[in-house]
């Protein structure tokens, strides 16, 4: 499970945010495009790609993309 791969899949859930704008340190909830619907897309992507079911709290307590990556990794 690679962080860069996760960031790419994470970026795919956005329409207007490019992967080049995202890094491991990006505070994703501060992105202009972040919304509750994008959050659902992230949950769906993680389920599909990593077979991990994220809870709302997993997203709420993660600040950066790397934080969320670590949650997924710990559950995978």
């Amino acid at each position: 499970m690679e962080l860069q791969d996760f960031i790419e899949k994470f970026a795919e859930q956005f329409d207007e945010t490019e992967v080049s704008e995202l890094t491991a340190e990006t505070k994703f909830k501060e992105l202009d495009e972040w919304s509750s619907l994008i959050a659902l897309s992230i949950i769906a992507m993680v389920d599909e790609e990593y077979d991990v079911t994220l809870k709302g709290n997993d997203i709420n307590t993660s600040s950066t993309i790397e934080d969320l990556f670590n949650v997924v990794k710990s559950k995978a």
Partner: protein
Amino acid sequence: MAFITYNGVGIRALSACVPSKIMYNHDLDYLISQDEIDKTINSIGISEKRFAEAGVCASDLCFEAAKQLLKDNDVDLSTIDMLLFLSQTPDYKIPATSPILQERLGLPKTTACLDLSLGCSGYVYALSTAYAYVSMLGINRVLLLVGETFSKITSLYDKVNAPLYGDAGTATLVEKGDFTTSYFELMSDGSGKDSVMIPAGECRNPFSIENFRVEEQEDGNKRSGQQIYMNGMDVFNFALRVVPKSIKSVLERVDISLENLDYLIFHQANRFMTDFFVKKMKFDSRKVPYCLERFGNTSSASIPLTIVSELKGKLDTKTKVVLCGFGAGLSWGTSYIEFQNCNVSSLIEY
């Protein structure tokens, strides 16, 4: 474990009623930017929904649906042995709504009446309750009325809930007869009670001026303690874990493959969610009917409303259907039913 089978019981007729007042999600621009509205509509699949006028309750919509069903099927009222009413928006705290409907519909005093309460899983549970009574000696016909008016408990200043919910009332006639075996799996997980909730206004947190006030809540949405709250991420997490699994489990018990189903009818939660389940299960999306584009999420009424609005005329010959409801509780139920000669009334407006 609640896995139930019923023999010689089935759905003879169905009807549904929606309010005539249309609420367009495009008009939510006071709450959500137009750009975001377009994305929301595209994702949840709901363009518009129906709202009951002030003074029109779930029971009124069910009453209209029931009247239509009784008329279309020329039902002798004395043959209805029981009336079940399921809703979380009943007429009063006391008394129950079902006896009120018994009297309004002109059903005899010999009719047993019972109110049931569940959210979006409600139809599958209530249908199983109707089947259970009809399976007993002494009861041959149950009139099941399932309706909701979430418009009355939803804050129009809540970005999560305002685009979702609509109102509807439905009637289902369940009776003894030459029906094939039906299967029900009914499940619950109360640890998720906070995921979908109206926290105040009942006995745990009684009505107060404070919880009556519409205020900005922790999630940034404005609502009162007496209006519906939903944690969309947790509900999605829950549904993702249980819904495809429950459908597979029922089909295994029935010993039928997913491909051999004619229709898979989901509670109309939102399109994003159910489309994801369909994709995850690799099911043919053409066999998944939707009515939420026009009527939104009507909670427990959404499954029978979908049948009435999308499958009228398609349930005459033997039709293999799975119904799946999931939501507040947390609660979920899946059922496998073979429809045959089911008389579906035309959708009515009130």
